[in-house]
């Protein structure tokens, strides 16, 4: 998987209510979710980002509600990967299930500044900061999750077994 783009940096405890507020959850179409991605955190996010850009955040990204609309909104907005110190449990699970690449890597979060050009190799967990010419190594996913990811998410995985 080829991931490359500019980094947009945010802080800790970015909750799913600010990623996609409940007032937009009466419609789960991807265009609708994408249009309001991160609206209550950074109103300009959708306008200023380019397809392929990454979100880099601190601790507990995606905390709160189980709404899968949150990773769906991020993916549909064109974000190629989210890097954080840690992810909230349900957001982590949802991201893997729907095929949104996520990486836990405090070293990368510390090293990457907003606007840095970043490349990610999902299979090896290697994160390259092209702007600063630095490399960081994320923890690789456990084998089972790698299989889930490489199969194309949970539904494809289930379809292999039913």
């Amino acid at each position, binding site marked *: 998987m080829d991931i490359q783009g500019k980094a947009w940096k945010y802080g800790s405890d970015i909750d799913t209510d600010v990623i996609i507020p*409940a007032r937009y959850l009466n419609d789960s179409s991807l265009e609708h979710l994408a249009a309001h991605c991160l609206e209550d955190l950074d109103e300009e996010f959708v306008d200023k980002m380019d397809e392929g850009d990454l979100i880099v955040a601190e601790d507990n990204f995606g*905390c709160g509600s*189980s709404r*899968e609309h949150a990773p769906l909104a991020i993916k549909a907005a064109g974000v190629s990967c989210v890097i954080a110190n840690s992810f909230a449990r*349900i957001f982590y699970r949802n991201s893997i299930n729907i095929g949104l690449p996520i990486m836990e890597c405090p070293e990368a979060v510390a090293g990457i500044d907003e606007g840095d050009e970043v490349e990610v190799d999902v299979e090896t967990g290697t994160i390259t900061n092209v702007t600063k010419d630095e490399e960081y190594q994320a923890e690789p996913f456990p084998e089972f999750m790698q299989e889930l990811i490489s199969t194309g998410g949970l539904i494809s995985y289930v379809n292999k077994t039913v």
Partner: protein
Amino acid sequence: MGMTMVEKILADHAGKDKVKAGELVNAKLDLVLGNDITTPVAINEFEKINVDDVFDQDRIAIVPDHFVPNKDIDSAQQVKQLRDFANDKGITNFFELGEMGIEHCLLPEQGLVGPGDIVIGADSHTCTYGALGALATGVGSTDMAAAMATGEAWFKVPETIKFVYNGQLQDWVGGKDLILYTIGDIGVDGALYKSMEFTGEVIDDLSMAHRMTMSNMAIEAGGKCGLIEPDETTLDYVEGRAQRDYKVYKSDEDAEYDQVIEYNVSEIEPQVAYPHLPENTRGISEVEDIRIDQAVIGSCTNGRLEDLRLAAEVLEGQKKADHVRLIVFPGTQEIYKQAMKEGIVETLIDAGAAVSTPTCGPCLGGHMGILAEGERAIATTNRNFVGRMGHPESEVYLSNPAVAAASAIAGEIVSPKEVL
């Protein structure tokens, strides 16, 4: 080395003698849950799976509760999709408006969850059923879809933090205060990926309603689940409700815990969580002058009969402040009916409350009580994130029902002692 409750439940459901924290297992599910926000996405995913039928028509619960009564055309479409799917697949536990309730008040009341169950729900507050000794945890819509097809899900066996509550509860302190205090202590990611186990003499004496309030908010500390060992109180509650067999699991004496945290509750006063995180807690005596525009009493956290009784005890013979809107939403129709029989509804209405049909609406800023720019609410709900209850520039303070009721009377956040 022994096992914790959560390890035992997972081992049994995965067909293993023993599991340990960190292991990934595939486990059989006793119940799969979804609501009107998460189930539409799950249905779309279910339709991509190569099966025609759900794994068990009696083990799926679909509860339209978030945007009902349908707040707009889009919400109506979503609920219609649920209704059509439930009819088409023969799902027996579809709860139509008028029979429904807030899912996490409704399912225990209906006996659809019991001790020892594994329940996944496409709603983060599914962890509520930990109060019954069930491993219950929130997931997303894709997990719900896969579970509806297979009746199974993968889990990472969590480590457990054991919380021990000893001492004597102060007046107007209950489950809500204990869990807010705990979240204030360990933080909103203090139990990330972990199982929380609530124990001690104080928990032994807590009613089921207070226990459910505590387990409900395990997710606000990042927890996977919040378990309480079943005892006589649990079995009394389950007796006569349980629709399936259940099994009591208890942690072994020599089970391995990630951490053991002890609290002396005698020092804990009613808690208030300031915006914009549930961890921003302080005792009621440390709350400055916080004028409120709205007081909200209800939700899956505090919408049970005991919660309404507490609110009515404070509001009896009193009036809300002129500038405050007081909204009360009981958790289920059964709770609503009982509150009417006990005269609670009349007390609340006489105090100036709008008493709503059961809905999650106001808690998540869906409908039935949205805040305007700059407005402030005290709420017995579970989250006070930016924009949670409406405008991104509005604020939510979390508390127990008695504090919310007292604050409605005073027009600012106060202890019940101030108005009685």
